């Protein structure tokens, strides 16, 4: 029964600053707003799509997607209303498209609408999205937590440059979701209460939500699992033994879910020698020794992945050698991934002619250069532990490592003026993790294409960070973009995964899951990594 279970307390150690995902794009903001505004369809914990505001998922089979893959037509559930009681129509959907694609708006989710040429509303309950070309995966717009529908009436005055000025709308948008905002204190706390006009009269079970932000993961975990003050804590990036200690508190448990997030070491395929100057550095090829399969394979073999998982992530990590380990169909089976083989690695290097000729414990390349690598990553306790461990292992195979860590906001900040961004990659190897939205890896695989390499000419924009460039890979990827059949796509995906590992694009380390803390008395929640973690907040209830 709606509102019967009182209040639920959620803590996010990153506090939401806005309730409008189109203006921020930060996960915390997207997730907080997912309590209020909803997309047409979401992904479920398995990565499958489930209709939310839509009647059903359009496919080629049911005629929702055109045969030539250039348009998709959504049917909206009948009788939906906004929380203010006004009816939800296709106009709102079209408005959302207009809002986000307004050239002056600075919409954070504009990529969702990439390739869309028009959104039409034949009637109040039908929305037709047309793409400029065949799109085998047409579920970008209006699907998932990052592409929810906002109310046309509320945001009508907030188009383009005016978007930031609509504080009221940005802080408490009118939505169709299970809750409505009572009060929004940016970067601090949000109070919400059950939406009286929610489509399922029996939901949500909670009358109130207290959504607190701030602090750190330790404190959030403690508040859920040790003191029981909160019911749900998001993203507990903590050392496994700390988590174990907290679970011993007995008030809650940590739950893990795995998306496509992979912690990996990117290998630089260009020569980052500072002597080359800013423009050539990270552009000229090849790297003095990293391009040699013997070298990067030895480096990979020297790593004890199970130990990394144990130390850094515990149950929120899995050993992997895949770039895209999830959805599982795309993951290739790569042998020897979970064993450390220092002796083998040494042998491989010896055979390839990398020998320690001057006895200083560091091997030299055949042309006499010492094998020294600069290993950079962002500042983060787990990453620094990894750095320290890997440095030690690499030293055992005769490769000397210099460590460097850069403040995360600089490292990931993408400022073209900074030499420390991960895009510039002024180092030999660098470690980070990233992922993609939704379940379709096609465009993510595209990050391995030759022409995606960041260069001075492109203002250092582009996602091919390792500057991996392989004709075979490019060709295979082109094939993927033309394939619509799911089984075939999975097969190609596995090949791409194998290829980038074997040919020296990266050394994947850990398939990282997301770990969240959940109180023992919170029921009805399934951790979902493909969409907002709060995707099923309507189903939450109190276990008595």
């Amino acid at each position, binding site marked *: 029964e709606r509102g019967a279970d009182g209040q639920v307390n959620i803590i996010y150690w990153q506090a939401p600053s806005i309730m409008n995902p189109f203006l921020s794009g930060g996960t915390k903001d997207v997730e907080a707003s997912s309590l209020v505004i909803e997309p047409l369809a979401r992904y479920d914990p398995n990565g499958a799509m489930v209709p939310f505001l839509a009647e059903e998922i359009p496919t080629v089979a049911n005629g929702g997607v055109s045969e030539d893959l250039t348009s998709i037509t959504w049917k909206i559930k009948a009788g939906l209303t906004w929380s203010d009681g006004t009816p939800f129509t296709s106009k709102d959907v079209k408005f959302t498209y207009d809002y986000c694609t307004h050239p002056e708006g600075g919409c954070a989710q504009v990529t969702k609408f990439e390739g869309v040429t028009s959104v039409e509303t034949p009637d109040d309950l039908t929305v037709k999205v047309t793409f400029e070309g065949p799109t085998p995966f047409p579920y970008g717009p209006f699907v998932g937590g990052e592409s929810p529908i906002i109310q046309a009436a509320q945001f009508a005055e907030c188009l383009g440059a005016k978007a930031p000025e609509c504080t009221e709308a940005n802080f408490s948008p009118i939505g169709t979701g299970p809750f409505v905002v009572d009060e929004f*204190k940016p970067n601090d706390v949000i109070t919400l209460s059950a939406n009286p006009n929610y489509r399922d009269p029996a939901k949500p079970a909670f009358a109130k939500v207290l959504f*607190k932000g701030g602090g750190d993961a330790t404190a959030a975990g403690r508040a859920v699992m040790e003191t029981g003050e909160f019911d749900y804590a998001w993203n507990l990036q903590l050392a496994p033994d700390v988590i174990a200690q907290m679970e011993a508190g007995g008030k809650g448990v940590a739950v893990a879910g795995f998306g496509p997030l992979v912690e990996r070491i990117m290998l630089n395929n260009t020569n980052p020698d500072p002597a080359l100057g800013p423009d050539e550095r990270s552009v000229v090829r090849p790297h003095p020794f990293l391009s040699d399969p013997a070298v990067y394979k030895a480096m990979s073999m020297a790593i004890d992945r199970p130990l990394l998982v144990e130390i850094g992530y515990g149950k929120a990590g899995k050993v992997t050698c895949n770039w895209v380990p999830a959805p599982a169909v795309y993951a290739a089976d790569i042998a020897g991934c979970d064993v450390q083989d220092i002796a083998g690695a040494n042998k491989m290097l010896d055979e390839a002619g990398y020998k320690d000729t001057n006895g200083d414990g560091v091997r030299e390349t055949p042309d006499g250069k010492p094998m020294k690598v600069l290993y950079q990553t962002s500042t983060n306790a787990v990453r620094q532990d990894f750095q320290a461990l890997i440095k030690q292992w690499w030293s055992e195979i005769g490769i000397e490592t210099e460590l460097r860590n850069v403040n995360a*906001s600089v490292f990931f900040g993408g400022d073209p003026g900074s030499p420390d961004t991960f895009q510039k990659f002024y180092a030999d190897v660098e470690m980070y993790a990233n992922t993609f939205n939704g379940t379709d890896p096609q465009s993510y695989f595209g990050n391995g294409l030759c022409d995606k390499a960041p260069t001075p000419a492109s*203002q250092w924009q582009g996602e091919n960070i390792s500057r991996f460039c392989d004709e075979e890979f490019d060709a295979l990827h082109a094939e993927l973009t033309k394939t619509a059949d799911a089984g075939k796509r999975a097969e190609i995906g596995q090949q791409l995964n194998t290829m980038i590992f074997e040919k020296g694009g990266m050394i994947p380390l850990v398939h990282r899951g997301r770990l969240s803390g959940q109180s023992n008395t919170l029921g009805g929640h399934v951790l979902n990594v493909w969409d907002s973690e709060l995707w099923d907040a309507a189903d939450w209830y109190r276990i008595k």
Partner: protein
Amino acid sequence: MLTFTIRRLILSVPTLLFISLVIFLLLELAPGDPMAQVPLTVPPEVKEKMREALGLGQPAHIRFWKWLVQFFWIEPQVMIDHYFGSNFSEGDLRVISWQTRSPVMDIVIQRMPQTLWVVGTAYVVAILIALPIGIYSAYRQYSWFDQMGTFVSMVGFSVPPFFSGVLVIVIFSVQLGWFPSIYDTTLVVDSWDAFVKQLQQMIMPVMVLALQITAQLSRFMRASMLDNLNQDYVRTARAKGLSEYTVVMVHVLRNSMIPVVTVIALGIPAIFGGAIITEQVFKVNGIGQLLIGAIQANDLPMVQTLTFIFAVLIVMFNLIADVLYGILDPRIRYD
């Protein structure tokens, strides 16, 4: 005294303007990017668009001027409007935070209560504890109590709050379960129960903060008392036949308070500034947390405004401290 105050007030205007320029330039030089927190999945072109939407493309001097106008001209109007229901500020663009896309001042005002509650209370508590300790330590210099006091205050001074905070949480929240570990800023004190709750959630942060402040203040108090205890007028007072209590608590204390009161006044801006680390540890989400959050998110207008408000407070309380000094000590006249 009056002309001194006026003179200092007038002098503080150029000082503040200069400070605001320095702050602006410093922040301008910092190579942070407001888009750093946007997830990696958002492509660079989109980020560039978002940057433009924030007005980042304009030259620095125009932005500085805009900010000055907004801060000194529009914000006061908004305040007047708020209190008198007028509408001077209608349609004017206020200082907008990049992170939340809402007026900076609104958020600052929203954060004020919890900061004042926690840090302010801690300050008051610290004063109430520190003064007696300081007085007694000085009166019984090198006694057992004095040695203990020195020791404890030095330890208190040297324990960083990120540690002492977690320590009290582990003890009082986790082990004993007496107090909540997370501060609830939505709590409205309208009943006895709510008040008790408020007290419970305040106790730990106040404790941690007060420990540090007490440590420093009691040292000041002790030194000041020691200075005065050996003065000739103390002997005169004793020669009049006054009781020890009157001698110490009236004659000596009054004189010793003069420097201490100014030290206390100079510490007040810190209350508004919040106690960044303690706020962070207990999730009080006050001004300090706001600042550090804004810095991390490179929310330039927010950082600028906050730092400038601090500067104003510091300059103001410097002045107040000077004036207080003059008022408390009849010997000092600033003219």
